[in-house]
């Protein structure tokens, strides 16, 4: 494993570092976006403050983990600042926004550098941020912020019911000159005066914080019993409180005036959040590819149009037509590929979280482990990759906990005292194969067999091949560890991994050699959306079976089918394959030709089963769609796919069908 040293002599894992950079870059970008938005409308800052605080907090946390002390300190100061804004003790003015944006600029360019070699100059930022924070107590230097008067729903209700009773609501705003001193005293005097006219519902800034002096305006909502006369308004507007007061403005409160823009703002914010969660980084060249192929499609469309306009000119028209169709077919397939490419990420992005997990477990168990990556640039559909994280975490934990021996044992065996685990990825056709390999003790077949007997999964007399014994570990309720450890072996382990994989139309395989180690191979489709399916016809309808579990398709004769009781079987050396006649089982009958009986042989648990069908169609790429659950779940159907002519092909949950059909018979 590549490790680098930071300034405090802690080890930073390179993968962790790159994860930090990617993540932080995104967070800084989001922060800049928000700051720019606030710059447009300072009064809207309250809407964003929670998110800003969270971002600052996250960046601070991850900088701390990486050991970037200077950065952590600066982020801590920013976090404090945001916290003050959140508590209404501070208001971000243009100067503060400028400073923060300047900081994010430098931060962003710092992230592009070799951050392990160059330290971040936190000192100057700390000074500026601190002076910014102190300014709230020393007014007068710059433009003072104005506070927004935002009513909460309760207060809004109070105002509107007050208005409905025919009473009046006013908004009064006192603006101070920049030189104004002891504003709190002015406000205090004015509040005492104005309470002669009615009830003060709310002020901004809040009455309890007026001593901060950090406001250029003071606003309040006044509830009065009746309309104020012009005379009264004049008295209020000219109330002589202090020479620092620029003017006092009084107007009737319009409920909607405040409501509307605020709500709009909030919605925008939420919308942005959603977007942020679903964004994906895509290389520009990939987008160009899609655009180019769209261009090709346009050309084809034009060609088709011309062909149509020219009308039928004999055989050549058909030849041209067929040629254009061929082009169309190719271009659409290419376009499909490049569109899918937009969702692909290198598996490295998934792997980055694992070194820490492995290190933590190893530490806990007192083992020495190094984690290696192979083929980390292999790409995988983002959604698919994320769905695999739990399975991989489980396999890695198992590898450290059960697979690898401890240091003393390895030394006694003459092995490297440090155990090695390799996470590998490679593409095989439209599948990704991810491997977890350890150089530990290997699976103990005899122990697995005994455990399976003890758990009633098999009986003593079962004569299983080594492969069959290994596959026992994927069965529900199987766990070989006598002591249930905190880390793995909770009894739900491997079978959960297997179940999850099946949901992703994937599969798992194991190779093991005593004393040398074990490899678990996860095989999943490149993307969740499109799978390869073996299509068959039953009773005139089209059905699909995921290709991952199709072993073989054959055509046999009636005389090759034997019966054991009511169970029909097909004997293929050296195994006996139970058959399920899908037409009969589904009650979708179809005529059978005794000399040509099509059978699809599938994996079914540890063995094989054969589905007798009406017709074999072949492998197709299909997009699986869920079936609306209005009528509940159909356990035997995994989903549906649109096949030609808008028709629907049902994708079989073949394992379920085989198990149920064979149990019944």
């Amino acid at each position: 494993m590549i490790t680098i040293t930071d300034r405090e002599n802690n080890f930073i894992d390179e993968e962790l570092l790159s994860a930090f950079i990617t993540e932080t870059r995104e967070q800084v970008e989001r922060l800049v976006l928000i700051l720019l938005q606030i710059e447009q409308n300072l009064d809207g800052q309250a809407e964003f403050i929670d998110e800003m605080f969270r971002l600052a907090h996250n960046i601070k946390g991850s900088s701390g983990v990486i050991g970037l002390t200077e950065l952590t300190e600066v982020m801590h100061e920013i976090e404090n600042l945001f916290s003050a804004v959140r508590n209404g003790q501070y208001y971000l003015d243009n100067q503060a926004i400028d400073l923060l944006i300047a900081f994010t600029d430098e931060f962003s360019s710092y992230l592009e550098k070799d951050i392990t070699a160059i330290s971040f100059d936190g000192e100057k930022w700390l000074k500026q941020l601190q002076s910014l924070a102190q300014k709230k107590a020393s007014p007068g230097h710059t433009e003072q912020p104005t506070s927004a008067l935002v009513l909460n729903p309760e207060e809004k209700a109070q105002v509107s019911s007050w208005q409905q009773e025919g009473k009046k609501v006013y908004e009064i705003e006192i603006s101070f000159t920049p030189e104004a001193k002891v504003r709190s005293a002015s406000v205090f005097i004015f509040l005492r005066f104005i309470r002669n006219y009615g009830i003060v519902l709310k002020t901004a800034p809040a009455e309890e914080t007026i001593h901060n002096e950090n406001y250029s305006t003071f606003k309040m909502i006044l509830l009065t019993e009746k309309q104020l006369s012009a005379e009264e308004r004049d008295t209020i507007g000219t109330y002589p409180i202090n020479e620092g007061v620029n003017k006092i403005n009084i107007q009737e409160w319009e409920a909607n005036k405040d409501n509307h823009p605020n709500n709009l703002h909030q919605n925008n914010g939420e919308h942005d959040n959603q977007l942020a969660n679903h964004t994906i980084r895509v290389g520009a060249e990939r987008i160009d590819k899609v655009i180019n192929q769209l261009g090709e499609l346009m050309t084809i469309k034009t060609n088709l149009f011309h062909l149509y306009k020219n009308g039928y000119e004999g055989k050549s028209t058909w030849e041209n037509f067929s040629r254009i169709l061929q082009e169309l077919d190719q271009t659409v397939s290419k376009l499909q590929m490049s569109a899918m490419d937009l969702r692909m990420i290198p598996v490295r992005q998934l792997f980055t979280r694992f070194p820490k997990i492995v290190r933590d477990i190893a530490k806990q168990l007192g083992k020495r482990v190094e984690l290696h990556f192979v083929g980390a640039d292999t790409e995988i559909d983002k959604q698919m990759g994320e769905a695999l994280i739990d399975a991989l975490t489980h396999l890695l934990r198992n590898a450290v906990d059960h697979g690898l021996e401890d240091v003393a044992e390895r030394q006694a065996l003459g092995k490297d005292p440090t155990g090695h685990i390799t996470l590998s990825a490679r593409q095989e056709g439209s599948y990704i194969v991810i491997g977890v390999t350890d150089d530990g003790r290997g699976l103990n077949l005899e122990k697995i067999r005994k455990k399976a007997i003890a758990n009633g999964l098999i009986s003593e007399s079962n004569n299983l091949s080594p492969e069959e014994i290994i596959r026992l570990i994927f069965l529900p309720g199987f766990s070989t560890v006598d002591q249930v450890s905190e880390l793995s072996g909770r009894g739900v382990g491997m079978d959960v991994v297997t179940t999850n994989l099946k949901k992703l139309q994937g599969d798992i395989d194991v190779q093991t050699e005593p004393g040398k180690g074990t490899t678990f191979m996860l095989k999943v489709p490149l993307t969740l959306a499109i799978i390869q399916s073996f299509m068959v016809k039953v009773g005139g309808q089209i059905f699909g079976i995921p290709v991952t579990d199709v072993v073989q398709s054959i055509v046999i004769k009636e005389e090759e089918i034997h019966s054991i009781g009511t169970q029909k079987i097909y004997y293929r050396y050296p195994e006996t394959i139970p058959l399920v006649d899908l037409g009969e089982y589904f009650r979708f009958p179809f005529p059978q030709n005794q000399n040509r009986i099509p059978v699809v042989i599938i994996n079914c648990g540890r063995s094989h089963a054969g589905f007798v069908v009406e017709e074999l169609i072949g492998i197709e790429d299909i997009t699986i769609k869920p079936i609306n659950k209005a009528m509940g779940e159909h356990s035997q159907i995994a989903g549906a796919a649109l096949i030609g002519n808008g028709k629907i092909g049902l994708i079989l949950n073949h394992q379920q069908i085989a198990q149920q059909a064979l149990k019944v018979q």
Partner: protein
Amino acid sequence: MARTDNTMDILNLQFTGSEAEKQHIIFSVGDEEFGLDVLRVQEIIRYVEPTKIPHAPAFVEGVINFRGEIIPVINLRRRFSLQSVSDHDFSVIIVIETNGKTFGLTVDQVSDILSIPDDKIQPAPEFSARAGTEYLKAMGKLGNRLILILDLDKIISLNYQKELEEAIEASLPSIS
């Protein structure tokens, strides 16, 4: 097909353009006229043969592709234990959305969109010999027309038939 695209368009237009409140879409199954709140109706589409689902209850005719979504279709004739028809010239599938569930109802024919005033609506009788009455929410009277208003929850409930039989079973001693 005897029915033209035009008719479908007019029907769909009528119900999108109509006042929503108390409006019912009226259709027939067998000899009875039924009503459904138009607010529940997403669209009326011409009958297409659904793709059958193995081992689904008999009244589930199958699934269809409705605007890219795969939705189940319930055949009301089968739901009411009436003889199936092979002639689908006038049959339509009414696409319903209720509680986030989308499904289709195959009916013999759609005839009208009618407003039924509240005072013309009365609760449904517990049991009756008429087809489909066990799935009713209420009945509406318009002149001499009797409109049976369906309870969608009962229609899609897989267990409802069983519950019903059990209820009848339980009430038998008092009847005899």
